[in-house]
């Protein structure tokens, strides 16, 4: 669907992304004054998982120890499976540690309607009873449809519904950047 959008502006470049993640990592540590073993970073597949790993790596640099890292695929928890046209491919969820009594920091690339995070919360709770769940996002673009709020935000970007925020990461897209796209025509 990319070719129906045209790039409007660049929001973050590689250097800016790096600094933003650094700040988020520090904020996480500042807010949660506990042993690193008491924290786990869980990324929402797909780009959230890369961001989660990067944040964990930064914390390791700071504290000398990495928190546990996990990946959540929320496909099976979506509430719109019978309405979408394409069959979503289910990827693997990997939570290889016990989440009970841990502080879980969920990580995603873009916070939009909040539905994805709602799915992630449901799925996470099925794994155990965490002490608390906090949310870190690289970009918050507004337009919430559920009462969900991020605890750690990289950048707030007000957007219109005709626009799309695209986070590209080296691990998946070969480049680090966040761009704003706009729909070319009013179709679909």
């Amino acid at each position, binding site marked *: 669907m990319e070719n129906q959008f045209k790039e409007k502006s660049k929001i973050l470049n590689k250097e800016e992304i790096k600094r933003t993640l650094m700040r988020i990592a520090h904020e996480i540590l500042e807010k949660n004054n506990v042993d690193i073993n008491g924290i786990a970073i869980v990324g929402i597949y797909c780009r959230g998982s890369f961001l989660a790993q990067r944040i964990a790596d930064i914390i390791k640099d700071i504290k000398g120890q990495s928190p546990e890292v996990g990946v959540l695929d929320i496909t*099976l928890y979506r509430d719109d499976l019978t309405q979408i046209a394409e069959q979503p491919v289910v990827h*693997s969820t990997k939570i290889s540690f016990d989440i009970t009594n841990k502080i879980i920091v969920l990580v995603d690339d873009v916070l939009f309607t909040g539905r994805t995070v709602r799915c992630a919360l449901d799925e996470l709770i099925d794994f155990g009873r965490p002490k608390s769940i906090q949310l870190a996002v690289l970009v918050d673009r507004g337009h919430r449809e559920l009462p969900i709020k991020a605890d750690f935000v990289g950048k707030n970007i007000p957007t219109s519904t005709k626009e799309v925020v695209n986070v590209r990461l080296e691990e998946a897209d070969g480049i680090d950047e966040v761009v704003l796209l706009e729909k070319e025509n009013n179709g679909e």
Partner: protein
Amino acid sequence: MANKTIWKRKDLLGIEELTKEEIHLILNQTFSFKEILERPIKKVPTLRGKTIALIFFEASTRTRFSFELAAKRLSADTVSFAAASSSTVKGETLKDTAKNIEAMKVDLVILRHSMPGSSYMLSRYLEAGVVNAGDGSHEHPTQALLDVFSIYEKKKKIEGLKISIIGDVAHSRVARSNIFALKKLGAEVTICGPKTLIPVDIEKLGVNVTYNLDEAIKDADAINILRIQKERQKETYFPSIREYIKLYGITEERLKKAKKDVLIMHPGPINRGIELFQEVADGANSIILEQVTNGVAVRMAVLYLLCSGETIEEKEK
């Protein structure tokens, strides 16, 4: 990460009509579903509100269990009908049974029946999807899928592997479905059993045929052992159980001629001491219990693919 819509079917009736890509899709998805079985809460809300009817005309505890578990793990509601053996016995045709069930607004029907083609018949009468849980000697697609997944899990590939299927191939839906799946994925398949139980022209499916067990197992990467029904002896397919064991029973002794890392498989239930002996069934090469676990995961993947996504009807609106 574009989603290619590979799965478009409302039914899973057999392996023969599936493409290689469709089989790969199911296998890949199965890994994700298997993970759910390791969680403390082995349930996801994906098929919440969907109703799945299990209609079993042939007695079967384990397949029915496996499907029910798969459905429940996906939060679907299940209803079980253990029907009499066939239309003529109880007087209501398969078509009528199906129409009645559809009138109760179920979303998916899982059918096991003793007649080949019964799932195909059913899928023509129903708008709901149909999963073939075994139609006579014809096909048992989810069994083949879990068998292939189990091999794949251990050997990391199917292409180029040598798989041997031993036993009553003529009457085995497990054999047929496995042959279709393994051939599509590029394995070399060998069939072995008494000549009376090997069906006519089966070589045309691209399999090797041998009546000699040692031949069949010596280079095999996996051996799938079929259950032999004792009644076949009365039907003069072989003279005695004793002779069957002598020629085709998998004992520890006979296994010495196989590869060290050969996988031992069996769809269950095992006739211990006939087609498969204790030591082997419980031995290090056996993945029989993994097959059972994988069975639930594979069926979850299948139910997921059939029940979610737009239905054909909605698409046409």
